[in-house]
């Protein structure tokens, strides 16, 4: 199969590595080859974090910049940062939840307006925006926002990984209350994306 390249971007602490691992483990369950990059920078929480997942015939965990099929943006500024360097017609799902960088606050400035920024980037046609944090809260914890995002991708229907294998991967990772919250978060993410697709 053609390699399916995903980049997941956001801020340390948002569960980005967990999201990448869940998608990858689901892919393994479907018998697909997968490699994932997991770079730990200097800060544990609060810095930019990127994870790449490559499903299919890939050797290394770094995708060519023009070959991304999917961008999962957990934070608007970080999503724009990635989009401006990849030059790709990737599908983009973005969590609207803003996290103000210290560099902005220190200048007594406010979070920049990212609306329309993506249109300045060639190749980017459409960004699906979702309130993953709020939906995660509805599921029982804002920490399940990453699973909301995975649910949203599932219903977009481009991931070479199905709902069943994601559920299996969630079962491997969580138990009890956290499992219930994450299963609900996935469903709510799927519904949110369906509504968005229907309204377009």
């Amino acid at each position, binding site marked *: 199969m053609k390699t399916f390249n995903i980049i997941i971007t956001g801020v340390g602490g948002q569960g980005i590595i967990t999201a990448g691992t869940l998608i990858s483990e689901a892919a393994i369950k479907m018998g697909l080859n997968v490699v994932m990059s997991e770079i730990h920078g200097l800060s544990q929480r609060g810095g930019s974090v990127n994870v790449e997942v490559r499903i299919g015939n890939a050797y290394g965990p770094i995708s*060519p910049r023009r070959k991304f099929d999917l961008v999962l943006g957990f934070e608007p500024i970080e999503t724009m940062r990635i989009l401006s360097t990849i030059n790709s017609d990737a599908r983009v799902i973005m969590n609207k939840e803003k996290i103000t960088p210290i560099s902005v606050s220190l200048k007594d400035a406010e979070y920049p307006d990212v609306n329309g920024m993506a249109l300045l980037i060639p190749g980017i046609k459409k960004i699906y925006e979702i309130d993953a944090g709020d939906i995660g809260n509805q599921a029982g914890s804002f920490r399940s926002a990453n699973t909301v995002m995975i649910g949203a991708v599932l219903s977009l229907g481009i991931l070479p990984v199905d709902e069943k294998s994601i559920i299996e991967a969630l079962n491997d990772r969580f138990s009890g209350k956290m499992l219930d919250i994450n299963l609900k978060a996935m469903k709510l993410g799927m519904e949110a994306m369906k509504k968005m697709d229907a309204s377009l």
Partner: protein
Amino acid sequence: MVKFDANMVDNSENEVLFLLSNEAIARGAVEAGVRVATTYPGTPSSEVGDTLSHIAGKSGMKFQFSINEKVAIETAFAASISGQRSMVFMKHVGLNVASDPFMSIAYTGVRAGMVVMSADDPSMYSSQSEQDNRHYADLAHVPMIEPSNPQEAKDFLVLAFDLSEKFKLPVLFRTTTRVSHMRGAVTPGKIREGQPDTGVFIRDIHEFVCLPSNSYTLKEKLIEKEHELKKESDISPMNRIIRKGTGEYGIIASGAAYNSVMDVISEYDLDISVLKLGFTNPLPESAIVKFISDNKKVIIIEELDPYLEYKIRTIAQMNKLDSTIFGKLDGYFSESHEFTPDTVAHSLSRIMGFAVQDVPENKLVLPARPPVLCPGCPHRATYYAVKRAVKMMNKTDTIYASDIGCYSLGLYDPYEEADTMISMGSSIGMANGFAMSTKQKVIAFIGDSTFFHSGIPPLINAVHNKLNMLVMVLDNGTTAMTGQQPNAGENFSPPGDELPPVSIENIARSIGVADVQIVDPYDIKETLKAVTKALRENTLSVIVARRECAILRDKAMQKTHRVITYTVNQDKCGKCMNCVENFACPAISIEGGNIKIDSNICDGCGVCAEPYVCPFKAIEVAQ
């Protein structure tokens, strides 16, 4: 976690595991029957230790977070010469610390297999340099093995132990960030049975005593072993032809660069042969001669230094081969930073003449998001208090000597309390020099783990030489930056064990530091008082700022929902911006002109609510 632990030590036919190479290395250590494993945590090697600390006991292995890399390698070496397979692992600069014993261990050789793992960091994701540790294999005359992916990381480690035992030499096992931190499918292998649970040391005074008279002979034996190893490298399954082209172009590659090479070949459908090297010292000379003879143009693709290239060009010259060789020395590839499929494609296109599409330049202007101290981090409170104390005492020319750890981030705006940072323990070491050569006040910042690692000798040096400085030991009870590994300062319990904590203040007092204070950094007033007192008295002072790492606390509480968070009472807020501009917690930002605390980010430390941060007492517990 339970299932993961079980899979990692299970000897039956396992399902395919999805592992980080570092986790695969831990599994490899179990399969190889390692009995003693030691480390000092350092990214990108840390997860080997994180994994072994869970599973070692279940596999009959003794595992230790050592005080530093030198102690770690000496511990592992003693186990090996007592007949137990041993492994020591560290980040690349850690091997500098361990290099003194490492060189001698090559001379004496080992008994049971011993592997020394070095995780290098091209592009310096979390390091002070991108030093290429492959040179250590040459320097010590020991065999070196380099995997490219998680499966190889596990398989090659097992082969490394066999090689070590066959030649009675330590084997250098070298990874890089992109290998250590790559996740992929791993099929587990059989666990080697029958390794002795207890070692026995049998003396031989000529074997392990590096007196000049002994070493004179040991050196000759070492070089003999190196010659024998060349034959081994030539037949090793770790060096192999991956694909054959039509004989025009051939690539020799290793490690992470090999992955990029293969991805580029498939992306551009190139006609090219590939020789992959996994056993990289000594090189498989016959295999390389044949490969160069079979291909008119040979391209050497390796990250960092032209390590393979120098050797391969030498082999080509000695064998009078007339193929053209391309690499770094003729400017086609960079000697800095990691390679990606895009950079490899770009270099290859210049040699082979195919067209590549350039990656676009970043057109958007976006605010940076540099690494920051976590919300709730006690170091933030310490830096805030120290900066304020220095200002109050008007010590404008204060020198801040920093060290390796999370607190290195004190470099950044608004704290700017890191003027120097070069190596483990260098804060106090350099403070010695500033105290000798300047009249400026010197403040050294060092973490608890770094203090134990290499902060004690320079403190003794300062006491003995009557050098004045303020040493701030930022004691958060863990080796935080590498992922909260335990250190000597706190109780750590591998299953069933409780280890006695070593007291930082007792060490300081015992070596003769008269002025030792202990503060809770969350108490800004207390810290301010202690720092101003130390700055007033021109002496050698040690302040231990003790408060548990916020992440460690969160993990211990295993909380899914926060109990307490803080909020800004807008009626009281005087908009002085002190919390935003000087305390600078990631949870605090400005929205619509008002200061706001993000309850999803707030860790509930409450330091911002203290009057020294918020004079208007506008920050309150959220209801």
